[in-house]
């Protein structure tokens, strides 16, 4: 399967890639995650998911589901099954065991003041 990266693959239907999805009665179509890029060069934001029989139709359907009420310059769709995620049991992965507040934005407050104080200490003794 070639890339699903929308920077590489455009929305023109590419039928050679269509893979037949055989569904049993009451099965549903594959699920795709939808990302909207609101401005050129901006981040693609996850906005939701939808059912579609193939990637081309996922893009077609995503346009009306997720891009009809707000600014959008590009859509991405990704098969949900292509996404890996950490489990809820592993939430502790994100908890620091020691104080790491210096990594947070406030760790950079008053940088100039602190830098100057440090410089003062370095002044050679005349």
């Amino acid at each position, binding site marked *: 399967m070639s890339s699903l990266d929308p920077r590489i693959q455009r*929305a023109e239907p590419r*039928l050679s890639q269509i893979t037949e999805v055989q569904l049993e009665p009451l099965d549903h179509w594959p699920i795709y995650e939808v990302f909207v890029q609101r401005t050129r060069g901006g981040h693609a934001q996850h906005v939701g998911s939808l059912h*579609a*029989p193939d990637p081309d*139709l996922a893009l077609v*359907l995503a346009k009306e589901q997720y891009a009809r009420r707000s600014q959008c310059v590009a859509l991405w769709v990704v098969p949900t099954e292509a996404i890996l995620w950490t489990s809820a049991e592993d939430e502790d992965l994100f908890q620091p065991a020691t104080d790491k507040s210096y990594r947070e934005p406030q760790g950079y407050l008053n940088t100039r003041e602190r830098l100057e104080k440090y410089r003062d200490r370095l002044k050679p003794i005349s």
Partner: protein
Amino acid sequence: MLENLQTLILTLADDDLFMGHRHAEWIGLGPILEEDIAFASIAQDETGHAQAYYQILTDLGLPSPDEWAFRREPQNFRCAHLVELPNFDYDYAVALLRHFFYDAFEKVRLQALTRSAYEPLALLAKRLQSEEKYHWLHARTWVERLGRSTEEAHRRLLAARDLLWPYAWALFEPLPNEAEMVEAGWIPPSQTLQEEWFALIQPILEPIGLWKEPPSSSELAPCLGARYGQRSPYFDQLYAEFTEVSASEPDADW
């Protein structure tokens, strides 16, 4: 001059008005939620396009869009019979294929209208192209997908093709006084549009086994006359339905 312009604008507007209404009959009945929403949006777009076309006439001092849409004698409508056809037994193959034939037609017609010598029309055509681009993407993606899908999908598409085929070709019946409109640079001849339409859809339908020879003149004959006021047998019921609310309170302010 004004009469020709009125014929042309009403042809464009009435096609979109009726197509929008027929598509809208699918609201809540679409095959899946996502498609229901997409198709309803397309219906809404078409109705909006109709309104924008009527407005060109209104701007010339002629009646308002509501009057054109809701208060006109059937013989004064100019829409093609393809867009008047009901959804019959609600087979989505029929809905999709009609949408495919119609939006391929709109694609070539709008493209031509962007170069129209009648400037308000050229400007509007440019504005409508963005939505029509989506309509065409939606239609062709579905038809290509289903055309390569199961045997049942193919069988239903074939039946839909046979039902719609002469109506689709009748979209290109020349307009009244068309030669004068062509001379004025408003539109290209219907024959030219038909060739472009043919070149657009044939390479899509041929590989999925949905192409066949153009209809004979006797197959085509019952679908003609639409641009001259001949209404199909399906017009009256539809028109009665969609004017019901406005007729109940003609002076209402919407």
